[in-house]
């Protein structure tokens, strides 16, 4: 995307190649630009997002969950919660939407090479780090031990069981799951994700932690990881804010002196430590 282009704000038409109902409130749309030339030059990094446009309703910022190597189809997992996403939930395979992007700065995948990686997620889905796990899975030999830790409030909130089972089969990988409230069919830990940290496999001198989820949860994870000896420069997190223009102009995603849309959404904890978990920013 050219910085000086007058097309910064302009979406391109994309077709829904496949629609997957992940859970009652979560769908994945697999998209391909209808213009092959646009598709051919489209590139992204794990952790970046696109602005998806629903005709007549508006745009919404959605993380990309697919792998950059497979740029022919771009996947977005969408939580059905607002006006635009409720409309998108009604779309079917073959329908068209608008897409502009990619935007933002993604995860430090190159810096993480040869390091142990700890991926911590909380809540539903956590699409921003699914791209990290997929990225490492497809390049497994380049990374150290992979830890995947997912916490949910209630075991019923847990989705993607098959996907976690597949990840569990990856070499040199630890998958840990926790639910604050469990049920008879929940074979994993009942309690907080941080209860599981003793079971993680990593060298604190060089491990990289990548996390997303509620900020309160990330705050607790950061505290534990720092106590485990991981430096603030090795803690990475994905922020969520109201993003409308995605170009650092509209001001909605302002976070202190940063715009989450263009300076993030992925930040090193060092960059945001002073404001992190201060309510209202």
């Amino acid at each position, binding site marked *: 995307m050219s*910085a000086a282009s007058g097309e910064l704000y302009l979406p391109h*038409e994309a077709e829904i190649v496949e629609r997957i109902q992940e859970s009652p409130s979560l769908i994945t749309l697999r998209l391909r630009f209808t213009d092959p030339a646009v598709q051919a030059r489209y590139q992204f990094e794990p952790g970046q997002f696109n602005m998806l446009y629903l005709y*007549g309703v*508006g745009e919404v910022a959605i993380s990309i969950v697919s792998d950059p190597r497979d740029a022919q189809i771009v996947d977005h997992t969408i939580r059905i919660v607002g006006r635009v996403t409720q409309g998108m939930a009604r779309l079917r395979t073959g329908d068209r939407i608008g897409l502009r992007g990619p935007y933002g700065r993604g995860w430090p995948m190159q810096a993480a090479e040869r390091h142990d990686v700890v991926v911590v997620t909380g809540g539903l889905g956590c699409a921003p780090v699914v791209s990290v796990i997929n990225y490492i899975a497809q390049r497994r030999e380049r990374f150290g031990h992979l830890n995947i830790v997912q916490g949910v409030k209630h075991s019923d909130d847990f989705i993607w069981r098959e996907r976690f089972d597949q990840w569990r089969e990856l070499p040199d990988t630890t998958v840990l799951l926790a639910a604050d409230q469990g049920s008879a069919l929940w074979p994993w830990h009942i309690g907080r994700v941080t209860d599981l940290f003793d079971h993680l496999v990593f060298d604190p001198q060089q491990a990289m932690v990548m996390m997303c989820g509620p900020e309160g949860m990330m705050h607790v994870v950061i505290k534990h990881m720092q106590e485990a000896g991981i430096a603030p420069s090795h803690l990475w997190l994905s922020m969520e804010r109201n993003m409308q223009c995605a170009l650092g102009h509209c001001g*909605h995603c302002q976070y202190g002196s940063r715009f989450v849309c263009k300076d993030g959404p992925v930040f090193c904890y060092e960059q945001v430590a002073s404001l992190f978990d201060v309510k209202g*920013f």
Partner: protein
Amino acid sequence: MNQDVGFLAHNELQSLLDVLQGAGYRCIGPMVRDGAIVFDELSSVTALPQGIRDRQRPGEYRLTETDSPRYFAWANGPQALKPLVFAPQESLWSCERDAQGTMRFTITQPDHRPTAVLGVRACDLAALYIHDQHFLQQAYPDPYYLARRQQMLLVAVNCTHPADTCFCASTGDGPQARYGYDLVLTEQDDGFVLEAHSDLGKQQMQALPLQPVTQHQLQQVEADMQQSARVQQRRLPSRNLNQALFANLHHPRWAEVAERCLSCGNCTSVCPTCFCHTSTETPAISGELSIHQREWDSCFTPGHSYIHGLTLRADTAKRYRQWLTHKLGSWHDQYGRSGCVGCGRCVTWCPVGIDITEEAAAICGQPAEQGAST
């Protein structure tokens, strides 16, 4: 005669408009409408607010007529240059959709008529410079802003009548225009000392019926500017409050100001540097066309901080803190200076008269000093 300076008699002011119009510019200037001085298209100097004075206090703005021959004997109205470059509402693109659901996106070409603005104050030039940084000098230059900005010719007016709510002397942005303009006028009772500050400005000057400027007139300009700074009673406690504000995020004053603040967003509308805007969609009733627009927004609205079911700043204290810590604090990290140019509009146009200088002083633990600085 020095080509860059001359004296334009009051009865020759129309020639300035004629020259600018003759050069192809749409002229914008101040005029009285609905009890306020606003900027709009101007073809005759008879529309200018000659003899009008403004009285501004926290929460109060009133115009009065006087016998003064001066056209610019007032401080500022609710608008700055902001609406002329960053439109209150504009279309960015449109989407046509046919019966098969195929979509076609088209960019809206921005209006970029050459525009000359008469009567720009130093505070508003400073604000324009800040907006240039935000909209043009970052990773993604904004094409809509750029199209209008490139076509502007600015005729500044040195401010000889600051309002009670002005504090540009303490922010270092006024009352004298020092950069960013093509021509500048300093008004005296019989006319204007006119100076050019750009090649474009010099070109326009050549066609004007100017008299040689006298030493006395130049000395008067200097004296007027000093007086204009001296009479300003309000001031910010410091030009860099970044550290002080963020060290006081839990100060009780945030809750206290929130008791008075209506969260109406007036301060952000009249602020010449506030840039927040929101996206809106206007679908045609035919179902075949939808227009994607942007319009000014304010960090005082609940929707501003909404994310998927959660409003991050659900109460006024958090919104006022967001505004002030950005405007006077983190703006320094973003753009190398404060986001406040001392125009005082937020003080005047706040319905309950909240004074940014008073709040900044209270929160940063410094008394709001009286008297002029610099």
